[in-house]
């Protein structure tokens, strides 16, 4: 008799809990931002071409955000995200343009290389026990060098038109690269929430010692996380190669900070053990909205930066006030929230 009421109240409780999560807040920001832009652009923001351009450049932030998230979830950092992406993009481009390798093979080589680099990074971290921060910083440096060695200062562009077409194709104004990113996100989410291997990663991140005592090799999880991170960077690099006018040594140069920003704004803790696939995707949307606003309002980048900074800081402070008010109806936070 009470089951329906039970379910209802459970759903209501779940909804209530959700409404106070980071994801809900991001969702709100995304919707509000999109509506605001729609109004400001007097209705052209939701038109096909605008939507296409908007989504086209979401692929990279989503993918690198996910790549970083995988590393974060085992308590690691991956500073080589940008360098690995740039290197892989250049490698794919050079293989096709200078060595006439067919696009399919080049893409495969790119993906495999990125994955392999991730694997090697993980193995080095585990075997030498050197802090992952420093190891990925070193691989980053090495990869930057390798990227320069590959392409020097030129822009490589003489590669497969098919790949290019795929990179810019957008059936129903939904770019393929964006679809790729979303598919990657869904697969990653399924992997993390549903598979034994994914749960192991999370367990090792949540409490490495406990995981070890339960027979989960934390070392193996670290290697796995870096490998997976490498693969995702590889996907990001390939989509970048496909959609860019050419690849040069600047590709990937601006990936590092966004790769951290997306998952962390999306609600992933730096300490490991937590993931937020949807949150990461939404955070990427938020940053993309800022780009769109910048173009729409012809904003000076300095003003944009200043405003972003102030708005986030303001939200942080405002959110605090909101929370203190909320706290009057719910249990107090644990001490040490300041971390």
């Amino acid at each position: 008799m009470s089951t329906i009421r039970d379910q209802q109240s459970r759903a209501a409780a779940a909804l209530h809990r959700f409404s106070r999560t980071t994801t809900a807040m991001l969702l709100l920001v995304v919707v509000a931002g999109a509506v605001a832009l729609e109004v400001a652009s007097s209705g052209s923001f939701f038109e096909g071409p605008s939507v296409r351009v908007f989504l086209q450049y979401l692929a990279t932030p989503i993918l690198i955000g996910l790549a970083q998230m995988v590393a974060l979830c085992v308590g690691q950092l991956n500073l080589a995200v940008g360098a690995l992406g740039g290197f892989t993009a250049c490698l794919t481009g050079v293989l096709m343009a200078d060595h006439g390798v067919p696009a399919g093979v080049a893409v495969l080589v790119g993906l495999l290389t990125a994955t392999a680099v991730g694997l090697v990074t993980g193995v080095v971290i585990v075997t030498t026990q050197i802090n992952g921060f420093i190891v990925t910083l070193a691989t980053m440096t090495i990869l930057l060098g390798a990227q320069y060695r590959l392409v020097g200062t030129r822009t490589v562009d003489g590669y497969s038109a098919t790949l290019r077409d795929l990179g810019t194709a957008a059936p129903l104004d939904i770019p393929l690269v964006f679809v790729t990113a979303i598919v990657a996100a869904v697969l990653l989410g399924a992997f993390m929430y549903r598979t034994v291997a994914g749960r192991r990663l999370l367990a090792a991140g949540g409490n490495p010692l406990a995981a070890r005592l339960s027979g989960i090799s934390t070392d193996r999880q670290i290697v796995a996380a870096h490998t997976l991170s490498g693969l995702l960077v590889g996907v990001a690099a390939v989509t970048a190669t496909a959609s860019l006018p050419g690849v040069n040594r600047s590709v990937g140069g601006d990936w590092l900070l966004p790769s951290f920003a997306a998952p962390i704004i999306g609600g992933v803790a730096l300490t490991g053990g937590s993931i937020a696939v949807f949150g990461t995707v939404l955070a990427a949307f938020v940053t993309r909205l800022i780009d769109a606003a910048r173009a729409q309002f012809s904003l000076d980048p300095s003003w944009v930066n200043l405003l972003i900074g102030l708005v986030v800081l303001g939200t942080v402070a405002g959110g605090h006030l909101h929370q203190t008010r909320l706290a009057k109806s719910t249990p107090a936070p644990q001490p040490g929230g300041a971390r």
Partner: protein
Amino acid sequence: MTTSVSPPETVPEEKAAAHRMPFWVNQRLGLLVLVIALSILFGVLRPAFLDQRLVLFPLLRDVATLTVVALAQMVALSVGHMNLAVGRMAAFGAMFAGLGYDKLHLPMQAGLLLCLAAGAAIGAVTGWLIARTGVSSFVVTLAMDFALLGLVSLMYSALTEDAAFTTRPAGIDALRSYSLADICAGPVCGSPAVPQLAQFTVLAMLGLGFLYGGTRIGRELLLTGANPAAAELSGIPTGRRVLLAHTLSGLLAALAGFMAAAGTGTFRASIGDDFMLPSFLGAVLGGTLLTGGVVSVLGTLLGTALVGVIRKGLDLLGVGLESLNIYLGCILLLALSADRIRAVVSYRKVVRST
């Protein structure tokens, strides 16, 4: 990264290591050995490496500046936080110094004080936000980075012609180019390799060394980083400690900004652009934990020096850009692996001797 069974990756304090383990297990010593060994190697390959005026002086000047940057990061790390805005706080502080010289015609010291005050103030705002809201320091300092990036550019665009304050107060050129050789006690002069700019670094290191090594506040900072919940329950005002750490971090960042500006010539917006990675690298190489609670002032200097020496050596060998970074990364990894092996071997030795 480490589990309880593997040898401890860092030793919390020199004294701690000395008490339980022989001195040669110390990580800082490993770094020192690495720095010296690499210096000798480069010195042998290229005797010019030991040229005091042309090589060591600029090297040390660079290391001096970057050490302060890394110290700024170290202070934030000590409470388990990060400061992603180090570079921009440096630019922010330097901007005030430049403004003071350019528009108010302040003497050098006054400008420096203004710069430090500005850095401390912006750090305090950051710390206050983090302490009051409990939002991750990563997010807050990242937002602060953006805000300052915009603000600093806007200010420079509005106030200057060339996006830089070019007025140079009396004495700043001396800071840039003078070394200990210009300070003489009677007939004995200092080494021309040691830049006078390093006085700030030494001061900062002494101050922080005293803070973390000797005082209550320093210990409380570390415990706040080690376990905020336990710290709060032990009566440590964690909020105020977080505020203090970020204030200090801002202050040191501003000092680094001033040093960078003094070292290159003018106060401009791009100061601190490349500070973020070296700041983490120096601190983490030196043994400071990213998770908080363990810092090493001396290690930070050595970590920064290690990277500086490798880079300088490669420059001297004339390694071109197509190989420079590859070698840099590889040498760093090899050097650290070697040190790691040393640490493991010495750990085993201690175990065996027990």
